[in-house]
């Protein structure tokens, strides 16, 4: 993949995330938070899968941290 293409993809994805944050923080009363309480809206919707994924990526990539558990041990080979 060309540098310019990947760079644009990253820029686009970051822009999507930031667009969410910039789309105005509107007051949300406690009784209006039902949607936010849905399981699929959790920041970590599946703790066991997150743990496994982070352990795999931690073991196969040079980066780690910043999110939930990476798993113990020295990492896979």
């Amino acid at each position, binding site marked *: *993949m060309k*540098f310019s293409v*990947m*760079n644009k*993809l*990253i820029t686009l*994805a*970051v822009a*999507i*995330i*930031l667009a*969410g*944050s910039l*789309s*105005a*923080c*509107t*007051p*949300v009363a*406690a009784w*209006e*938070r039902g*949607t*936010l309480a*849905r399981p*699929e*809206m*959790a*920041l*970590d*919707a*599946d*703790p*066991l*899968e*997150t*743990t*496994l994924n*982070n352990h*795999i990526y*931690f*073991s*196969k*990539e*040079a*980066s*780690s*941290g*910043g*999110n*939930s*558990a*990476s*798993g*113990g*041990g*020295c*990492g*896979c*080979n």
Partner: protein
Amino acid sequence: MKSRTLLALTASAMALPGLTSQARADAAPTESIISYRVSSYQEDDLPLVHRLAGSRERYDIDVHQLRLLLPVGESYSLTLNSSYESMSGASPWYAIRRIDGSAGIVMSGATISEQRRDLNISGRKYLENGTLGANLAVSHENDYDSMSGGFDAERHFNDNLTTLAAGLSYSSDEIDPSDAELFNRVTDESKHSESVFMSVSQILNQTSVIQTGLNITHLSGYLSDPYKLNDRRPDSRTQTAWTTSWRKYLAGADAALHADYRYFHDSFGINSHTIDLNWYQNIGASLQVIPGLRYYTQTEADFFTPTLNFAVTLPLQATDYRLSNYGAVSGSLKLQWQVQDFTLSLSAERYHANSDYAINHGAISDGTQSPALVSFNRYSFGLDFQF
């Protein structure tokens, strides 16, 4: 199991508070949940064209995970996480330059078979305006032991629209490589890490929430890989990771979008970007289909060399493909089916790494990509029961 440059930020050390909470007032759980996952992780064989010696069969790992969440009284909870991994396969030992200029991989000669067990215990106290948490974890392998612990706190503000969270953790690891005398490896080495995390979560409106956080980790001790030939890395490493997560529910589609981004930088000279997108599509009241796409790109470590030069002794060097300049793309699909108090899940992932996927793939050290970059498949089956 073979060690690697990334010192394990163990389960407890990295049980960071940020992603375990929402930007809203927490209430202690009132029901227990027991969850089980079994997963099969299968790496592709090393292509014959890249192998100089040793087995082409890379790692296969079977993983069993068990999680138990228990309410304790009206304002506490206890969580137990345990896993058992059974591993077999061979891994790259070192790389050398061949006559045609390409890099060839010498794999470990024999297929290794070993196990890892870990246990993580965490407790949480729920307060009127936040939570307090603590955890301890241990991990054991025949050549590697890790212990860790941490604390975290959350505080809700702004009518519970905003949550600030912070955490500290520490881990201590002991490494005693197998066959040390035979291969002239180190013995009884150790490493330690301290980590701090801060995050802020904000409810944006009735259908979206965002969280951003900063994680700084300092590692010290033996950070080289004793199972790789002439692997010499710095004895300290500082890592910084900035993450942002956004969740958006789309009522028209009855679906939720998960978008996650991480920027990573460390004192080895590695920079990386990770983007993870997942679409949680509800189908009816009990079925959920979750396709996902992940992109990762990193630059190489300052001391990475694609091939060993036996005529020159460098103070720092490593041919580990995980320290090279590369990118990776993975796609996943997950199905979840809820039946009364049970939830069944099936998931599959395909991961492929290649130096051409890197953002700056033109800046590859020595013009030679690491041929040991990994591709793998992962399959999981899970069962959750709420009671």
